[in-house]
Protein backbone atom coordinates (compact mmCIF):
# COMPACT_ATOMS: atom_id res chain seq x y z
CA UNK A 1 0.00 0.00 0.00
CA UNK A 2 1.87 3.03 -1.24
CA UNK A 3 1.16 6.28 0.55
CA UNK A 4 1.49 9.75 -0.88
CA UNK A 5 1.61 12.57 1.61
CA UNK A 6 1.28 15.94 -0.12
CA UNK A 7 1.67 17.83 3.14
CA UNK A 8 5.13 16.32 3.62
CA UNK A 9 5.88 15.85 -0.10
CA UNK A 10 6.61 12.20 0.62
CA UNK A 11 5.89 8.96 -1.19
CA UNK A 12 6.32 5.67 0.67
CA UNK A 13 6.38 2.27 -1.01
CA UNK A 14 6.88 -1.29 0.22
CA UNK A 15 9.23 -3.63 -1.64
CA UNK A 16 9.54 -7.30 -0.62
CA UNK A 17 12.44 -9.61 -1.45
CA UNK A 18 11.00 -13.10 -1.90
CA UNK A 19 12.59 -16.47 -2.70
CA UNK A 20 13.49 -19.89 -1.37
CA UNK A 21 15.57 -20.55 1.74
CA UNK A 22 19.24 -19.45 1.59
CA UNK A 23 18.87 -17.80 -1.84
CA UNK A 24 20.41 -14.52 -0.63
CA UNK A 25 17.51 -12.22 0.29
CA UNK A 26 19.00 -11.06 3.59
CA UNK A 27 22.45 -10.73 1.96
CA UNK A 28 20.92 -8.27 -0.52
CA UNK A 29 19.64 -6.04 2.27
CA UNK A 30 22.90 -6.30 4.19
CA UNK A 31 24.89 -5.26 1.13
CA UNK A 32 22.57 -2.35 0.40
CA UNK A 33 22.73 -1.24 4.02
CA UNK A 34 26.53 -1.31 4.02
CA UNK A 35 26.95 0.52 0.72
CA UNK A 36 24.37 3.26 0.70
CA UNK A 37 25.05 6.77 2.07
CA UNK A 38 23.88 7.30 5.66
CA UNK A 39 21.56 10.12 4.57
CA UNK A 40 19.57 7.65 2.46
CA UNK A 41 19.06 4.81 4.92
CA UNK A 42 17.71 3.88 8.33
CA UNK A 43 18.77 0.97 10.50
CA UNK A 44 18.63 -2.62 9.27
CA UNK A 45 16.28 -4.59 11.48
CA UNK A 46 16.67 -8.38 11.34
CA UNK A 47 14.33 -10.72 13.14
CA UNK A 48 16.39 -13.88 12.86
CA UNK A 49 17.15 -17.06 14.77
CA UNK A 50 20.42 -17.69 16.59
CA UNK A 51 21.65 -19.44 13.47
CA UNK A 52 21.09 -16.23 11.47
CA UNK A 53 18.17 -17.65 9.54
CA UNK A 54 15.36 -15.18 9.00
CA UNK A 55 12.55 -15.91 11.44
CA UNK A 56 10.06 -13.18 10.53
CA UNK A 57 11.59 -10.59 8.23
CA UNK A 58 14.41 -8.11 7.69
CA UNK A 59 13.51 -4.45 7.30
CA UNK A 60 15.55 -1.66 5.75
CA UNK A 61 14.09 1.81 5.12
CA UNK A 62 15.66 3.81 2.28
CA UNK A 63 14.89 7.28 1.07
CA UNK A 64 15.63 8.98 -2.21
CA UNK A 65 15.69 12.75 -2.03
CA UNK A 66 14.08 15.15 -4.46
CA UNK A 67 12.48 13.06 -7.15
CA UNK A 68 10.30 15.69 -8.79
CA UNK A 69 10.10 17.57 -5.50
CA UNK A 70 9.18 14.50 -3.45
CA UNK A 71 11.16 12.45 -0.97
CA UNK A 72 10.54 8.85 -1.97
CA UNK A 73 10.85 6.21 0.73
CA UNK A 74 11.27 2.58 -0.16
CA UNK A 75 10.80 0.19 2.71
CA UNK A 76 12.60 -3.05 1.91
CA UNK A 77 11.50 -6.30 3.55
CA UNK A 78 12.61 -9.89 3.18
CA UNK A 79 10.53 -12.94 3.97
CA UNK A 80 11.74 -16.11 5.70
CA UNK A 81 12.53 -18.62 2.96
CA UNK A 82 12.06 -21.82 4.91
CA UNK A 83 8.93 -23.69 3.84
CA UNK A 84 7.63 -23.98 7.39
CA UNK A 85 7.30 -20.19 7.78
CA UNK A 86 4.60 -19.66 5.19
CA UNK A 87 2.26 -17.88 7.60
CA UNK A 88 4.86 -15.19 8.28
CA UNK A 89 5.73 -14.91 4.56
CA UNK A 90 2.12 -14.14 3.85
CA UNK A 91 1.95 -11.48 6.58
CA UNK A 92 4.95 -9.64 5.16
CA UNK A 93 3.28 -9.43 1.74
CA UNK A 94 0.43 -7.32 3.07
CA UNK A 95 0.37 -4.00 1.22
CA UNK A 96 3.32 -4.87 -1.05
CA UNK A 97 3.96 -2.43 -3.90
CA UNK A 98 6.82 -4.25 -5.64
CA UNK A 99 8.73 -7.52 -5.48
CA UNK A 100 12.25 -8.76 -6.10
CA UNK A 101 12.10 -12.51 -6.59
CA UNK A 102 15.57 -13.84 -5.75
CA UNK A 103 16.30 -17.15 -7.46
CA UNK A 104 19.24 -19.35 -6.48
CA UNK A 105 21.08 -20.07 -9.74
CA UNK A 106 22.40 -23.49 -8.75
CA UNK A 107 21.03 -26.47 -10.65
CA UNK A 108 20.34 -28.17 -7.34
CA UNK A 109 17.96 -25.35 -6.30
CA UNK A 110 15.85 -25.12 -9.45
CA UNK A 111 12.98 -27.03 -7.88
CA UNK A 112 13.02 -24.80 -4.77
CA UNK A 113 12.87 -21.69 -6.96
CA UNK A 114 9.85 -22.99 -8.82
CA UNK A 115 8.11 -23.99 -5.60
CA UNK A 116 8.88 -20.63 -4.02
CA UNK A 117 7.47 -18.75 -7.03
CA UNK A 118 4.31 -20.88 -6.91
CA UNK A 119 4.08 -20.16 -3.19
CA UNK A 120 4.41 -16.44 -3.92
CA UNK A 121 1.49 -16.58 -6.36
CA UNK A 122 -0.61 -18.43 -3.80
CA UNK A 123 0.18 -15.97 -1.02
CA UNK A 124 -0.47 -12.95 -3.24
CA UNK A 125 -3.80 -14.51 -4.15
CA UNK A 126 -4.79 -14.55 -0.48
CA UNK A 127 -4.80 -10.75 -0.56
CA UNK A 128 -6.36 -10.53 -4.02
CA UNK A 129 -3.07 -9.28 -5.54
CA UNK A 130 -2.25 -10.28 -9.11
CA UNK A 131 1.37 -11.00 -10.09
CA UNK A 132 0.57 -10.03 -13.68
CA UNK A 133 -0.13 -6.43 -12.71
CA UNK A 134 2.20 -6.05 -9.72
CA UNK A 135 5.67 -4.58 -10.42
CA UNK A 136 8.38 -7.21 -9.93
CA UNK A 137 11.86 -8.12 -11.11
CA UNK A 138 13.89 -11.31 -10.97
CA UNK A 139 17.35 -11.58 -9.51
CA UNK A 140 19.39 -14.63 -10.50
CA UNK A 141 21.77 -14.86 -7.58
CA UNK A 142 24.95 -16.84 -6.84
CA UNK A 143 26.24 -16.50 -10.41
CA UNK A 144 29.78 -17.02 -9.09
CA UNK A 145 29.17 -20.63 -8.09
CA UNK A 146 30.37 -23.40 -10.42
CA UNK A 147 27.16 -25.35 -10.79
CA UNK A 148 24.77 -22.67 -12.02
CA UNK A 149 22.00 -23.04 -14.58
CA UNK A 150 22.20 -20.71 -17.60
CA UNK A 151 20.03 -17.61 -17.34
CA UNK A 152 17.83 -18.68 -20.26
CA UNK A 153 16.96 -21.81 -18.31
CA UNK A 154 16.17 -19.75 -15.19
CA UNK A 155 13.98 -17.57 -17.41
CA UNK A 156 12.24 -20.75 -18.55
CA UNK A 157 11.52 -21.71 -14.94
CA UNK A 158 10.39 -18.41 -13.38
CA UNK A 159 10.05 -15.84 -16.18
CA UNK A 160 7.68 -17.51 -18.56
CA UNK A 161 4.48 -15.60 -17.94
CA UNK A 162 2.93 -13.50 -20.69
CA UNK A 163 4.59 -10.41 -19.24
CA UNK A 164 8.35 -11.02 -19.21
CA UNK A 165 9.95 -8.98 -16.45
CA UNK A 166 13.49 -7.60 -16.10
CA UNK A 167 16.01 -10.08 -14.70
CA UNK A 168 19.41 -9.36 -13.16
CA UNK A 169 22.37 -11.64 -12.56
CA UNK A 170 23.92 -11.14 -9.17
CA UNK A 171 26.53 -12.14 -6.63
CA UNK A 172 24.95 -10.62 -3.54
CA UNK A 173 27.84 -10.87 -1.03
CA UNK A 174 30.06 -8.91 -3.45
CA UNK A 175 27.26 -6.60 -4.53
CA UNK A 176 27.28 -7.42 -8.22
CA UNK A 177 23.77 -6.83 -9.54
CA UNK A 178 22.33 -5.89 -6.15
CA UNK A 179 21.83 -2.19 -6.88
CA UNK A 180 20.71 -2.95 -10.43
CA UNK A 181 17.83 -5.06 -9.14
CA UNK A 182 17.03 -2.47 -6.44
CA UNK A 183 16.93 0.41 -8.91
CA UNK A 184 15.00 -1.73 -11.38
CA UNK A 185 12.17 -2.45 -8.95
CA UNK A 186 12.10 1.11 -7.56
CA UNK A 187 11.68 2.53 -11.07
CA UNK A 188 8.89 0.05 -11.87
CA UNK A 189 7.01 0.85 -8.65
CA UNK A 190 7.17 4.59 -9.27
CA UNK A 191 6.08 4.15 -12.88
CA UNK A 192 3.14 2.02 -11.77
CA UNK A 193 2.15 4.50 -9.10
CA UNK A 194 1.99 7.30 -11.66
CA UNK A 195 -0.81 5.52 -13.48
CA UNK A 196 -2.79 4.51 -10.36
Amino acid sequence: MASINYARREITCKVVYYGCAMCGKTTNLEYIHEHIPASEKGGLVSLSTQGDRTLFFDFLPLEAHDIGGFTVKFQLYTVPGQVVYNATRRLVLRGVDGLVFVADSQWSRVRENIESFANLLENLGQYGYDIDTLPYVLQYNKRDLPDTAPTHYLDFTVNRRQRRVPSYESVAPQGAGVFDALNGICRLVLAKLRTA
Partner: protein
Amino acid sequence: MPLDALVIYEDDARSITERLDAFLASSRATFAILIDRSGQVIAERGYAQRRAAEELAALAAAAFAATEHVARLIGENAFSVLFHQGEQQNLHLSIVGENALLLAAFDDRTTLGLVRLYAAEAAENLATVVEGARGRSTEGLLPDSPEGDIFRRQSPDQGAATGDTGTRET
Protein backbone atom coordinates in the same frame (compact mmCIF):
# COMPACT_ATOMS: atom_id res chain seq x y z
CA MET B 1 -4.98 -3.60 -11.35
CA PRO B 2 -3.43 -0.30 -10.28
CA LEU B 3 -1.48 0.00 -7.06
CA ASP B 4 -3.80 0.85 -4.22
CA ALA B 5 -2.61 4.08 -2.62
CA LEU B 6 -3.25 6.12 0.47
CA VAL B 7 -3.28 9.75 -0.65
CA ILE B 8 -3.04 12.33 2.10
CA TYR B 9 -3.68 15.95 1.19
CA GLU B 10 -2.82 18.86 3.45
CA ASP B 11 -6.33 19.01 4.93
CA ASP B 12 -6.15 15.32 5.81
CA ALA B 13 -2.70 15.76 7.37
CA ARG B 14 -3.96 18.68 9.46
CA SER B 15 -6.99 16.74 10.54
CA ILE B 16 -4.91 13.70 11.55
CA THR B 17 -2.46 15.89 13.46
CA GLU B 18 -5.29 17.57 15.40
CA ARG B 19 -6.79 14.21 16.35
CA LEU B 20 -3.44 12.78 17.45
CA ASP B 21 -2.67 15.90 19.49
CA ALA B 22 -6.08 15.73 21.16
CA PHE B 23 -5.44 12.06 21.97
CA LEU B 24 -2.03 12.84 23.49
CA ALA B 25 -3.45 15.71 25.55
CA SER B 26 -6.32 13.71 26.98
CA SER B 27 -4.59 10.35 27.48
CA ARG B 28 -1.24 11.84 28.59
CA ALA B 29 0.56 9.30 26.40
CA THR B 30 4.20 10.09 25.47
CA PHE B 31 3.82 9.72 21.71
CA ALA B 32 1.46 8.32 19.13
CA ILE B 33 2.06 6.89 15.68
CA LEU B 34 -0.66 6.26 13.12
CA ILE B 35 0.41 3.26 11.06
CA ASP B 36 -0.84 1.71 7.86
CA ARG B 37 -1.34 -2.06 8.24
CA SER B 38 1.41 -2.59 5.65
CA GLY B 39 3.85 -1.10 8.19
CA GLN B 40 4.19 2.50 6.99
CA VAL B 41 4.01 5.59 9.17
CA ILE B 42 1.01 7.73 8.23
CA ALA B 43 1.66 10.34 10.93
CA GLU B 44 3.39 10.63 14.27
CA ARG B 45 3.19 13.11 17.11
CA GLY B 46 5.21 13.64 20.24
CA TYR B 47 8.19 11.75 18.95
CA ALA B 48 11.10 13.44 17.20
CA GLN B 49 13.09 10.59 15.73
CA ARG B 50 11.32 9.87 12.48
CA ARG B 51 13.48 6.95 11.48
CA ALA B 52 12.93 5.16 14.77
CA ALA B 53 9.23 5.75 14.17
CA GLU B 54 9.57 3.87 10.88
CA GLU B 55 11.14 0.88 12.61
CA LEU B 56 8.51 0.97 15.32
CA ALA B 57 5.76 1.10 12.71
CA ALA B 58 7.14 -1.85 10.72
CA LEU B 59 7.58 -3.98 13.83
CA ALA B 60 4.26 -3.01 15.42
CA ALA B 61 2.33 -3.77 12.23
CA ALA B 62 4.08 -7.14 11.99
CA ALA B 63 3.39 -7.95 15.65
CA PHE B 64 -0.24 -7.04 15.18
CA ALA B 65 -0.53 -9.17 12.04
CA ALA B 66 1.09 -12.11 13.83
CA THR B 67 -1.26 -11.91 16.80
CA GLU B 68 -4.20 -11.58 14.45
CA HIS B 69 -3.17 -14.90 12.96
CA VAL B 70 -2.79 -16.35 16.46
CA ALA B 71 -6.32 -15.13 17.26
CA ARG B 72 -7.71 -17.01 14.29
CA LEU B 73 -5.95 -20.19 15.41
CA ILE B 74 -7.90 -20.08 18.67
CA GLY B 75 -11.19 -19.19 17.03
CA GLU B 76 -11.14 -15.40 17.47
CA ASN B 77 -11.49 -13.06 14.51
CA ALA B 78 -8.82 -10.70 15.85
CA PHE B 79 -7.46 -9.16 19.02
CA SER B 80 -8.52 -5.55 18.77
CA VAL B 81 -5.87 -4.30 21.22
CA LEU B 82 -2.27 -5.25 21.98
CA PHE B 83 -0.55 -4.11 25.14
CA HIS B 84 3.14 -4.44 26.02
CA GLN B 85 4.18 -3.61 29.55
CA GLY B 86 7.72 -2.42 30.22
CA GLU B 87 9.53 -1.12 33.28
CA GLN B 88 9.50 2.52 32.13
CA GLN B 89 7.49 2.62 28.94
CA ASN B 90 4.41 0.72 27.82
CA LEU B 91 2.94 0.31 24.37
CA HIS B 92 -0.72 0.21 23.43
CA LEU B 93 -1.67 -0.79 19.90
CA SER B 94 -5.21 -0.68 18.58
CA ILE B 95 -7.04 -0.99 15.26
CA VAL B 96 -8.11 2.13 13.36
CA GLY B 97 -10.78 1.25 10.82
CA GLU B 98 -9.86 -1.71 8.66
CA ASN B 99 -6.38 -0.81 7.50
CA ALA B 100 -4.59 1.27 10.10
CA LEU B 101 -3.27 1.03 13.65
CA LEU B 102 -2.70 3.51 16.46
CA LEU B 103 0.46 2.94 18.48
CA ALA B 104 0.67 4.85 21.77
CA ALA B 105 3.59 4.85 24.19
CA PHE B 106 2.99 5.86 27.78
CA ASP B 107 4.68 5.82 31.16
CA ASP B 108 3.58 6.06 34.80
CA ARG B 109 2.21 9.58 34.35
CA THR B 110 -0.98 7.98 33.06
CA THR B 111 -2.77 4.63 33.21
CA LEU B 112 -3.62 1.84 30.80
CA GLY B 113 -7.31 2.49 31.36
CA LEU B 114 -7.03 6.13 30.37
CA VAL B 115 -4.96 5.35 27.27
CA ARG B 116 -7.35 2.61 26.24
CA LEU B 117 -10.38 4.87 26.69
CA TYR B 118 -9.01 7.74 24.62
CA ALA B 119 -7.38 5.46 22.04
CA ALA B 120 -10.79 3.99 21.25
CA GLU B 121 -12.21 7.49 20.76
CA ALA B 122 -9.24 8.60 18.66
CA ALA B 123 -9.42 5.44 16.53
CA GLU B 124 -12.99 6.20 15.63
CA ASN B 125 -12.17 9.78 14.65
CA LEU B 126 -9.02 8.84 12.73
CA ALA B 127 -10.68 5.99 10.82
CA THR B 128 -12.93 8.42 8.95
CA VAL B 129 -9.96 10.44 7.68
CA VAL B 130 -7.79 7.44 6.81
CA GLU B 131 -10.50 5.51 4.99
CA GLY B 132 -11.39 8.65 3.04
CA ALA B 133 -7.77 8.96 1.88
CA ARG B 134 -7.59 5.39 0.60
CA GLY B 135 -7.88 4.49 -3.05
CA ARG B 136 -7.72 8.04 -4.42
CA SER B 137 -6.31 8.38 -7.90
CA THR B 138 -2.72 9.58 -8.23
CA GLU B 139 -2.72 9.81 -12.00
CA GLY B 140 -0.84 12.84 -13.26
CA LEU B 141 0.02 14.04 -9.75
CA LEU B 142 3.31 12.25 -9.24
CA PRO B 143 6.81 12.84 -10.61
CA ASP B 144 8.14 10.89 -13.58
CA SER B 145 9.99 7.72 -12.73
CA PRO B 146 13.67 8.61 -13.16
CA GLU B 147 15.50 6.88 -15.97
CA GLY B 148 18.81 6.69 -14.16
CA ASP B 149 19.67 5.07 -10.88
CA ILE B 150 17.65 6.11 -7.85
CA PHE B 151 20.19 4.65 -5.42
CA ARG B 152 23.93 4.49 -5.96
CA ARG B 153 26.62 2.56 -4.19
CA GLN B 154 28.66 4.71 -1.86
CA SER B 155 31.99 3.53 -3.23
CA PRO B 156 32.27 3.48 -7.05
CA ASP B 157 35.81 2.06 -6.85
CA GLN B 158 34.57 -0.91 -4.94
CA GLY B 159 31.75 -1.31 -7.46
CA ALA B 160 34.21 -1.65 -10.33
CA ALA B 161 36.15 -4.24 -8.38
CA THR B 162 33.12 -6.38 -7.72
CA GLY B 163 32.23 -6.59 -11.37
CA ASP B 164 28.87 -4.94 -11.95
CA THR B 165 29.58 -5.44 -15.64
CA GLY B 166 28.49 -9.03 -15.10
CA THR B 167 24.87 -7.96 -14.69
CA ARG B 168 22.30 -8.07 -17.40
CA GLU B 169 18.84 -6.68 -17.89
CA THR B 170 16.51 -8.40 -20.29
